[in-house]
């Protein structure tokens, strides 16, 4: 063996077995033990779920109309909320990062509020604001006949409300970190502010934008409190997968487990599909 013991941080020479001698050092138990507990917290519930799954009845449970309706609605509303978060949230993040205006600190606090607020409270607040009798909702209804609560559109609004802060916070942080001199270079080449944003700033923050969009989508998929308060729990219209699970837990435990598994599957598919693109850091 020619490998040298190396504690200096230099890459150690590899021996014939291909083992890196640096990995031979044991990680400290003070870090490993809490990490194992933490990992258990994430793994055990999934095992619990799988252990109670009625595998044989699963296909028929999942094929139930209530479940497929909820699945379709969940996919539609979560992706719509993620899209709305991008379309509205990126400009908002840009404004918070790049423009000085009065009340900016307060606005930033309000934007992040839904991350802290119990979603039920958010849903209620939405109802007071854009419900049919709400501050903005009433004139909106009288002018256009549009009613947001208790509709699929209402679900999207509620989802966007809770999900967009994740995107705004992520993207604003990325915008703050952009080297502004690149934008100056683009401007010196004749690029107007919008061209610079589109062709330089946006590509530079693309990884954070993707991460923010996935966070927002994930948050929207799991949304419960604001949705049930603002959009109700109407099977086939506003009942998303999390609401369906909640209802099923009261009546049919096997159905609840089946729907939960569907949620787990969708989440894993999306996270794994994106993993190679940006989840892993170099």
């Amino acid at each position, binding site marked *: 063996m020619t490998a040298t013991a190396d504690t200096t941080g230099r890459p150690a020479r590899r021996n014939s077995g291909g083992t890196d001698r640096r990995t031979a050092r044991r990680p400290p138990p003070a870090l490993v033990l809490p990490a194992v507990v933490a990992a258990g917290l994430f793994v055990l519930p999934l095992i619990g779920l799988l252990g109670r799954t009625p595998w044989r009845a699963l296909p028929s449970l999942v094929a139930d109309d209530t479940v497929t309706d909820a699945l379709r609605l969940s996919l539609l509303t979560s992706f719509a909320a993620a899209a709305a978060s991008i379309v509205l949230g990126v400009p908002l993040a840009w404004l918070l990062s790049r423009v000085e205006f009065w009340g900016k600190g307060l606005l930033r606090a309000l934007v992040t509020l839904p991350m802290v607020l119990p979603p039920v409270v958010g849903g209620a607040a939405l109802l007071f604001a854009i419900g049919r009798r709400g501050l903005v909702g009433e004139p909106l209804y009288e002018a256009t006949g549009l009613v947001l609560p208790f509709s699929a559109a209402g679900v999207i609004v509620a989802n966007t409300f809770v999900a967009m802060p994740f995107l705004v916070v992520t993207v604003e942080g990325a915008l703050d970190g952009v080297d502004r001199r*690149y934008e100056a*270079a683009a*401007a010196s*080449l004749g690029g*107007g502010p919008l061209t610079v944003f589109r*062709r330089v700033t946006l*590509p530079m923050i693309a990884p954070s934008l993707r991460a923010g969009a996935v966070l927002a989508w994930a948050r929207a998929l799991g949304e419960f409190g604001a949705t049930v308060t603002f959009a109700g729990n109407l099977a086939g219209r506003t009942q998303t997968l999390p609401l369906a699970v909640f209802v099923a837990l009261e009546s049919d435990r096997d159905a609840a487990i089946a729907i939960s598994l569907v949620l787990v599957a969708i989440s894993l598919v999306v996270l794994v599909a994106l993993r190679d693109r940006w989840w892993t850091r170099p």
Partner: protein
Amino acid sequence: MNPSTGIGQPAPEGATAPPTGAGPGLRADLAVERRGFSLRLPLRIEPGTTAALLGPNGAGKSTTVEVLAGLLPLDGGRIELDGRILDDPDRGIFVPPDRRNIGIVFQDYLLFDHLSVLDNISFGPTARRAGSFPPSARRSRRQRAEATAHRWIEALDLGGLEHRRPSELSGGQAQRVAMARALAAAPDLLLLDEPLAALDISTRNELRRAMVDHLALFDGPRLLITHEPAEAFLLADELYVVEAGHLVQRGTPEEIRRRPSTPYVAALTGTNFLTGFNRDGAITIDRANGADRDGVVATGFVLTTSDTRTGPVRAGIDPRAVSLHARRPEGSPRNTWQTEIDWLEPLGETTRIRLGPPLPLLVDITPAAAEALHLAPGLPIWAAVKATEVTVHPA
């Protein structure tokens, strides 16, 4: 003059703003006040000529770049380019960066790494023409931009690198891409901010020579910002030496070399600058000399000059005017003395040498001459300077 000229909304693409009668090129009087720092700098650059702004860190070089680029407004004075006013606080005129038409080669190039070399270079042509074409003409606009980019790729010898990412380029290649990107935008002024500072020494020497040709590709006014005298002296037609926000001296490289106005300029340009007392053409050099911090002159060292005034003087000796000889040189009225090589440094076109006692001087000779004399630190050598090469100013 028409006060509305050059205001925030410039004339439509293709049309040039009405001239103010001041003529082509850059005419700028920069005045900037910042906390504890003020910049006062007049700049006049004719088309087809290169001016260099030479100064140490903190002289105001970056501030100059910022005000010209439009990243920082002037507090006073004005910037006029080809008769178009870009900044004039008195008249409330400020043209934003994207409408100034100033091509900039940045110190660390700032190439867009999410774009290929080709897309970096066609960024300017695409952006400049944006808005003047209807969407149906987008395709032809893009094609035209790429045709422009290809011309510059060829001019700067970047063929074969079109589809590389900037991060995959060598330092010298990246520098040329930055140059091509700036020039492809068809600027009215080319601004080079320490364009070679990011390169290692051998690449820098190589590119410094290539820069002469690269600069000739642009027929507008050029401004080179640098702290590197060798760069400024090689590339510039006119030098602006700045210190602490103020113009210390302005002139051709030759004028500045021969007549540095302060010890600072002398040290900066590598000119030998000595103080002493002239008595009818014989200057007794002071033992301590300001420009020469690490050398002490031997007591009573006398330089002969053709200038016969009497009194305290400043004497300048161009490093190129000092000749070195293996044996004691014969002939014409000149100063000769024996000394030794303190150190020597190859600077590409020349080799710079510092002599040891009795008179610490900087000497520039050709690498071939250095080779022929087998020059090395510690080598005993004879130095000679003609009396006419010792320029004298009253102290």
